[in-house]
C-alpha cells in the first residue's frame, strides 16, 4: 500500500531522512519509534505529500502523494501530535471535512460520543477554545469517521486521560481491519497490544524493523 523507495530529505545541510526504504501493507499495525530528530515526522509528512524529496520516492497504492494528492488523501486519516489552533467552530470544521472528504457528519458525532466528547453542546464553539483533550478526541473521531485505509497517528494520546485512552484503543480495535495503522510513539507499552510491527528510526535511517 505504502512504498517508500530510497527516500532522502534534507533541510539545508541537515539530512532528516537518509535513503529510507520501507513498505507498509494492509493489516500492518506499526509503531514507528525513535528519539527526537530521528526522522519519524519527516517520514509521515513525506507520506502525506507535504515534502518534496531530494531523492527517492513515495507511492501510495501506486500514486504519487504530491502529484495526485487529492486521490491519495481520500484514503488517509491523520491526527497530529498537537491539535493545531484552528479558528473555525466545530460545525465549520465538520463542514470543511464533510464537503472536502465526503465524511458523514453523523459518524463524526457518533465517534465523538464514543470518545465521551459532548459534541452537540459545543458545535458553535471555536475548535481553538476547546481543551487539549477535547480537541484530540474530536480529531480522533474525525480520523475514524473518515473510514480511510491508512490511518496515521502522531502521538495521538498525548493529551488524553487514561479513560479516554482506553476508549481510543477500544475504538481502534473495532476499526483496524484491512487497514494500515501507523503510530508515531515514544510509549510502546501503550500500543503494544495493537501493533504487529515495530520500526525504529535513528538519525534519519531505519535501524530495525520487526514483525511481532
Amino acid at each position, binding site marked *: 500500500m505504502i512504498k517508500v523507495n530510497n527516500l532522502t530529505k534534507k533541510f539545508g545541510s541537515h539530512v532528516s531522512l537518509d535513503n529510507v526504504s520501507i513498505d507498509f501493507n494492509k493489516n500492518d499495525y506499526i509503531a514507528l519509534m525513535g528519539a527526537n530528530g530521528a526522522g519519524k515526522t519527516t517520514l509521515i509528512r513525506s507520506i502525506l505529500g507535504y515534502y518534496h524529496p531530494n531523492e527517492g520516492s513515495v507511492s501510495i497504492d501506486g500514486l504519487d502523494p504530491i502529484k495526485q494528492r487529492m*486521490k491519495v488523501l481520500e484514503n488517509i486519516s491523520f491526527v*497530529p501530535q498537537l491539535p493545531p489552533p484552528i479558528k473555525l467552530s466545530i460545525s465549520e470544521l465538520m463542514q470543511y471535512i464533510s464537503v472536502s472528504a465526503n465524511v458523514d457528519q453523523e459518524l463524526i458525532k457518533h465517534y465523538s460520543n464514543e470518545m465521551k466528547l459532548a459534541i452537540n453542546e459545543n458545535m458553535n464553539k471555536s475548535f481553538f477554545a476547546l481543551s487539549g483533550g477535547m480537541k484530540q478526541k474530536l480529531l480522533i473521531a474525525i480520523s475514524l469517521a473518515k473510514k480511510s485505509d491508512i490511518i496515521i497517528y502522531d502521538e495521538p494520546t498525548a493529551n488524553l486521560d487514561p479513560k479516554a485512552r482506553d476508549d481510543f484503543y477500544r475504538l481502534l480495535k473495532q476499526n483496524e481491519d484491512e487497514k494500515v495503522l501507523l503510530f508515531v510513539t515514544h510509549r510502546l507499552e501503550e500500543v503494544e497490544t495493537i501493533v504487529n510491527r515495530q520500526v525504529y528510526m535513528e538519525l534519519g535511517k531505519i535501524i530495525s524493523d520487526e514483525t511481532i
Partner: protein
Amino acid sequence: MKNLYLIAYLDLKESIRAKWFLVYSLVFGGLIALFFIAGVTESQVMGFSGLSRLLLMYIQVTIVILPIFILITTVRSISGDRDNHVLEYMLSFPISLKQYYWGKIIGRFITVYLPVLLAMIIAIIYGTIKGASIPWNIFFLYTGLLFSMSSAFLGIAFFISSFVKSSEVALGIAFFVWIVLLSFIDIALISLMMSQRMSTELIIFIAMVNPMEIFRVAAISLFDPELTVMGPVAYYILDSMKQTTFVFVSMAYPISLGLVFSFLGFQIFRRKDLV
C-alpha cells in the same frame, strides 16, 4: 469548485470573527463618521466641498492605511497557518493546493474590500439623507480604485506569505514593502529626486510602477490639474496623458500586478514543502 467556495467561505467567516477585522472595519467606518462629525462636508477648502471633499479626504487617508492593513492582515494567511501547523492538518484532507490557495485569496479579498466599500456607501447614504448632492463620478472612480488597490496588495501579501516560513518574517517584509512604496508617493522625495537632476523619465517611471502613487494620482485626476496638492509627478502625468486613459491604466495595472503576484505566489506555494 465546491472546495474553492468552501475555503473562501470559511476563510471569510473566520476573518469576520477576528479582532483585526473589527478594528479594520471600525477604522474605515470611523473615518467616515469622523469626517461627518468634523463637518468636512460643510467646509470649503481649495475648491472642494460637500461629499466630494469628504470622499477625497477618505481616499487620501486610505492610500496610506489600506495597503498596510491588507499587508499585515493577509501576509500571515498562509505563513501563519504553516507556522502553527494549521496547514498540516487542513491539507491532510483531499483539497487541492489550487483550491486552498485561490479559495483563501477570494475569501480574504471580500474581507478586505467590503469594509472600505461599505464605508463609502454609508457616506453616500448619509449624504443623501442630509440632502447633499451625490458625486457619482467620484464614487464610482473610488470604488474601482479601491478594488484595484486591494487586488494589488492582496496579491503582494499572498506572494510574501507563500515563500516565508515564519509569520514574523512575513510581517517584517510586509512593513518594508509598505514603507518603500509609501516613500515613493511622497511629493518631497520625488521633488528631491528632481532636484538631484535625475531624468524625468526615471522619476515618472518610478511613480508609475508604484500602485500607491497611481492610486493617488487617479484619485485626484477628476479635479483641476493646476491644483498644488497634486504634486509635480501627478501634474506631469495628467498633463501628458488623457484622463480617461490614465484612469483605465490606474485600475488595470494594480489588478494585473495583484494577479501576477498571486500567480507567482501560487507557483511557489505548490513547489515548496508545505510545512
